[in-house]
């Protein structure tokens, strides 16, 4: 059993008014200190290469997306958020997605698609904001998912670095 010994209050404390003045002086000093709140929409959160935001498709420097619609990410996705319809193309890779949809309402931002992709075609961007007025608007198609490679370069480098470290331990 713990016996809590209560401290005897001094006369000044029992009079209460001096303590009130002490409290008032404290709050008055804090009154002039700088607010620490982040003004969110104007001051967005800082992101880093480690930030695992929403998945985005890489657009290579020649203007085509890197995806070959192999379906690995679709299978890896634990939330069944990705839907791919493949088709043929005249380019060397012969196959490209005719439809590539990510239902952002289902996506749990786990990054499995990034890990599964054999063609470095899908990466987790640093985009975090997700809002729309309709559910349909949050099912992103290819056009909404396309990002130039330069925008994702930091994340791509980071993933390569991570993978190389893992390989060197084998």
């Amino acid at each position: 059993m713990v016996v809590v010994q209560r401290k005897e209050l001094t006369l000044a404390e029992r009079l209460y008014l001096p303590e009130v003045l002490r409290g008032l002086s404290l709050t008055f000093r804090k009154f002039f200190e700088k607010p620490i709140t982040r003004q969110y929409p104007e001051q967005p959160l800082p992101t880093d290469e480690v930030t695992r935001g929403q998945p985005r498709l890489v657009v290579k420097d020649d203007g085509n997306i890197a995806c070959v619609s192999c379906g690995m990410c679709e299978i890896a996705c634990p939330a069944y958020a990705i839907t791919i319809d493949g088709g043929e193309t005249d380019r060397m890779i012969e196959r490209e997605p005719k439809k590539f949809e990510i239902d952002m309402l289902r996506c749990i931002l786990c990054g499995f698609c990034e890990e599964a992709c054999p063609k470095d075609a899908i990466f987790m961007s640093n985009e975090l904001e997700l809002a729309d007025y309709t559910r349909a608007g949050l099912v992103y198609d290819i056009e909404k998912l396309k990002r130039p490679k330069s925008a994702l370069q930091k994340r791509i480098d980071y993933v390569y670095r991570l993978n190389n470290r893992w390989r060197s331990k084998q």
Partner: protein
Amino acid sequence: MEDFVKELPVWVLWVAKVAIIFGGLVATAALMSLAERKVSAWMQYRHGPNRVGPFGLLQPLADGIKFIFKEELIPAGANKFLFRLAPALAAIPAMMTIAVIPIGTIQIGETKIPFSIAQVDLGIMYMLALGGLSVYGAILGGWASNSKYSLLGGLRASAQMISYELTLILSILVVVALSGSLDLGAIVEAQRVNGLWNVFTPFGALAFVLFTIASFAETNRHPFDFAECEPELVGGFHTEYSAMRFALFFLGEYCAMTVMACLNTTLFFGGPSVPFWANAPWYVGILAFLIKAGFFLFLFIWVRWTLPRFRFDQLMRLGWKVALPIALANLLVVGAWVAFSTKGS
């Protein structure tokens, strides 16, 4: 300009003064709701409302529009007549008491116009009588809601207001004894003539402390906000209120605070008189009044965001066993001093 003012019918001046002072009171009350949030935010390292207008200055307007357009609910089993009456009873007496506060004197040429709605010989009695009515708003609002939390809140509010009204009146009586008048204008004039604000006299200082404490309790402000007491009573006597009627309770509270701040200024800080500048121009006097009253309004907010709420028995003990005896003894000593001092004739 002077001739023009002299030739105006009396009622024009009345209407103008009522419009300015009453409008100023309501505007102050509205701005206080913003000031409360801003000051509390700054004391807690936050920014406070800053989305509506520059620095959030239009926030009270946005709140007002929201309140007007919200749906109004009246609980089943409520006494509809009293339920609708109570917010008015809470707001109107608080607004009416501003009428006798002498804010200063407007001087145009040689014509002096007292800047207060009414110059009543029994100004303090008028204030106390109307101030006493504000209990009805709380108790009727609590009772008519047909809710146990509201009823408890109303009961607490009325018990607290009645308890602290004694201390409030006794500390005002000290000032009345010192000045020898119940007219607020005469009290200000006495302080100006003596060149000594009542707060700097020994009895006046004690009365000032008691008056300030009692005014916090009278207006149901922290640390005595037992009428609301969110953790225990949901929202106190206005739990069941919504939309503009709910806002009226708040308007009444902020108006009562404003009037108390003005009364504190008038009774203890010489109203519009400026220290070390006996012949200050009239606009400096009014400015001085507004600054002093503004400080007390700030004090209301400042204390709210500093002190925790008392327990109800502590409140009653402080009211009846500490504040009331001290106020009584103070009045007794002042009475004896005034009666036996040589200046009495």
